[in-house]
């Protein structure tokens, strides 16, 4: 076991691991702002401003803003030291509020601001800029220099995802360390020296890696901004909702930035057990799928058989769609029993909806069930091969391999299929042709997909950002999400639709009035 030591920071005593530095130790205790991941400091947070230190990067000690007064014991003389690189020791006393500390911070802020452009009104970082924040809380309110400020490159296209403003850079080297230590791609460096130092890439080579946009998050200022979010929205208009990325089974935690009932961006939300402080670029951009044109917004039904010169699926009301499913399944159940029905779950559905689906299938007595998931590339950092946030949740509920189900379908033993999500054809064991002979295919999906081509009834369901639910990641961690945006009125949870279908089929324990309905009635006028 690591040795523990006691340190005192202002009036609070902490017991921490020996061998850590002051900032690391406070972060270990979850007491460091903003690393604790609060958007606002809380009373229990230690307020030690810092730029270059980051909990997931090596110590740089270059910004000098984290200076505090330390004493080896209550009676020892105080000295200024940087909190990020001062090791803790038994009885260490840290003063973050003394006049000496305030003066030291002021000095650092003044130096940092000497060459900083007065860009705030046109800078995308304004509102979440640590230079702005600390200039306000720890800086001086006027400049003593009259010399012209340094001129450097503006709007540098660093690569596919990032735009760089050299004048705004405070040379904390967080982005440099990220590219060397986290992605191992090493695109960035600080060239030249002294007041001519500049951040650059290797001449004519881009900043381009699968995690590149994280540099914009860790850049304390507006020097690195993402092309995706740049100039889209002032950050103070954003509401911050806790969510997860649904791109793969890692389930990276995100801050969902919401405005005008639309998701404006994902930012990684710290969770050391899941994603640390990072997320991949594909996952970060995956929020675009929430409001994409191919979202399903109404129920769809098909009246003629597939393969005839049949009309496209046509929009239908909820009741019509539910009735259509019942009208197809009831005779089949009566004539042939539940053995000819199969249920396929999706890694995109929430635990709650998967449980509802399993209950529905159990009550029907359907036992041909499986899980369809898409697989893709993975890496050593975060990205998992399973593309969907809840494969583990689906397996925990009881949905196993797809192969036996696919075999039965291809063998002609199945006449009706109820399927969640759009990964039905992903592993190649089934295709539209294999399903063409089925009497009934009922699909629940967020987006239009090839599954629709063989479906008789389609229900539009909610995205993870549109519901209060939970998802289980590949490590078995159950992660709650909150509703960030409200979808169209006809878009509902799988569980809600299944409840109605169960009721229409006359299944025991299924009622028409559902929670969502009750909730939306109660919520009327509240929006």
């Amino acid at each position: 076991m690591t040795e523990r030591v006691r340190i005192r920071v202002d009036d609070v005593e902490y017991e921490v691991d020996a061998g850590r530095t002051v900032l690391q130790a406070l972060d270990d205790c979850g007491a460091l702002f903003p690393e604790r991941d609060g958007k606002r400091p809380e009373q229990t947070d230690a307020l030690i401003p810092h730029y270059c230190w980051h909990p997931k990067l090596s110590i740089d000690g270059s910004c000098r803003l984290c200076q505090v007064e330390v004493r080896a014991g209550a009676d020892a003389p105080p000295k200024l030291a940087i909190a990020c690189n001062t090791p803790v020791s038994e009885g260490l006393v840290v003063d973050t509020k003394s006049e000496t500390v305030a003066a030291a911070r002021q000095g650092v802020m003044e130096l940092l601001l000497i060459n900083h452009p007065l860009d705030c009104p046109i800078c995308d970082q304004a509102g979440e800029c640590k230079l702005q924040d600390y200039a306000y809380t720890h800086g001086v309110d006027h400049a003593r220099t009259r010399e012209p400020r340094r001129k450097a490159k503006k709007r540098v296209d660093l690569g596919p995802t990032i735009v760089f403003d050299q004048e705004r850079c405070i040379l904390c080297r967080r982005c440099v360390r990220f590219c060397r230590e986290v992605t191992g791609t090493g695109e960035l460096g600080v060239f030249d020296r002294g007041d001519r130092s500049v951040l650059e890439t290797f001449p004519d080579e881009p900043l381009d890696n699968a995690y590149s946009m994280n540099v914009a998050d860790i850049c304390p200022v507006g020097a690195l901004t993402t092309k995706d979010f740049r100039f889209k929205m002032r950050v103070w208009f954003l509401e911050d909702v806790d969510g997860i990325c649904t791109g793969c089974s890692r389930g990276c935690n995100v801050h969902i930035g919401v405005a005008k009932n639309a998701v404006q961006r994902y930012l990684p939300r710290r969770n050391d057990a899941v994603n640390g402080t990072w997320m991949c670029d594909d996952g970060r951009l995956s929020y675009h799928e929430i409001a994409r044109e191919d979202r399903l917004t109404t129920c769809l039904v098909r009246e003629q058989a597939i393969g005839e010169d049949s009309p496209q699926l046509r929009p239908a009301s909820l009741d019509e769609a539910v009735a259509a499913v019942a009208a197809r399944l009831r005779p089949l159940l009566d004539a042939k029993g539940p053995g000819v029905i199969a249920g396929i779950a999706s890694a995109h559905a929430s635990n709650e909806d998967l449980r509802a689906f399993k209950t529905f299938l159990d009550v029907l007595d359907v036992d041909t069930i499986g899980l369809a998931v898409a697989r893709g590339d993975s890496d050593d950092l975060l990205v998992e091969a399973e593309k969907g946030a809840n494969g583990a949740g689906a397996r925990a509920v009881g949905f196993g391999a797809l192969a036996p189900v696919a075999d039965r379908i291809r063998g002609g033993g199945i006449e009706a299929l109820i399927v969640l999500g759009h990964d039905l054809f992903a592993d190649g064991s089934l295709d539209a042709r294999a399903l063409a002979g089925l009497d009934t295919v009922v699909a629940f999906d967020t987006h239009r997909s090839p599954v629709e081509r063989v479906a008789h009834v389609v229900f539009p369901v909610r995205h993870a950002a549109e519901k209060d639910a939970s998802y289980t990641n590949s490590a078995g961690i159950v992660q709650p999400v909150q509703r960030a945006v409200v979808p169209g009125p006809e878009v509902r949870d799988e569980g809600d639709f299944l409840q109605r279908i169960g009721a229409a089929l006359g299944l025991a324990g299924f009622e028409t009035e559902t929670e969502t309905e009750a909730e939306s009635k109660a919520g009327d006028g509240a929006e």
Partner: protein
Amino acid sequence: MIGETLRARIDAEIARFPVKRGGLLGALHIVQEGQGCVSLAASKELAAIFDVFPVEVIELVRFYNFFHESPRGRHQVYVCTNLPCALRGANVLLKGLEQHLGVGVGETTADGRVHLGREECLGACANAPMIRVGGVYHEDLDLAGACAVLDALE
């Protein structure tokens, strides 16, 4: 391309240090001496030899005045303009050399013979003003003396 001879010298340099990258600065000198500059291509080769990122090599090259990324003429002439030399007329000397060579500071003569630069203290203050031609110091100069030194260069 870093040829075999240079590579052998670089390997000898590496052997002098407990960690490989300790030899990088020396290797930059070796490459610049052998190839006239540390080109971007050479930086990449060095990065591979030293197991560092190419930007780390560029960081070094651009940190130190001694290194340059493109060739700078056959002879590199640097005039110290730090305080003691300045007090002894180094800036007048520099102006004079600019006129004599027909180039400005930081430029190379059209025939590629001489590159003229300015430098901080070279530690020869007692004999100011002075110029450095490659690795050789010429001290206690006046303009005529300095011109004579340059004219004698091939």
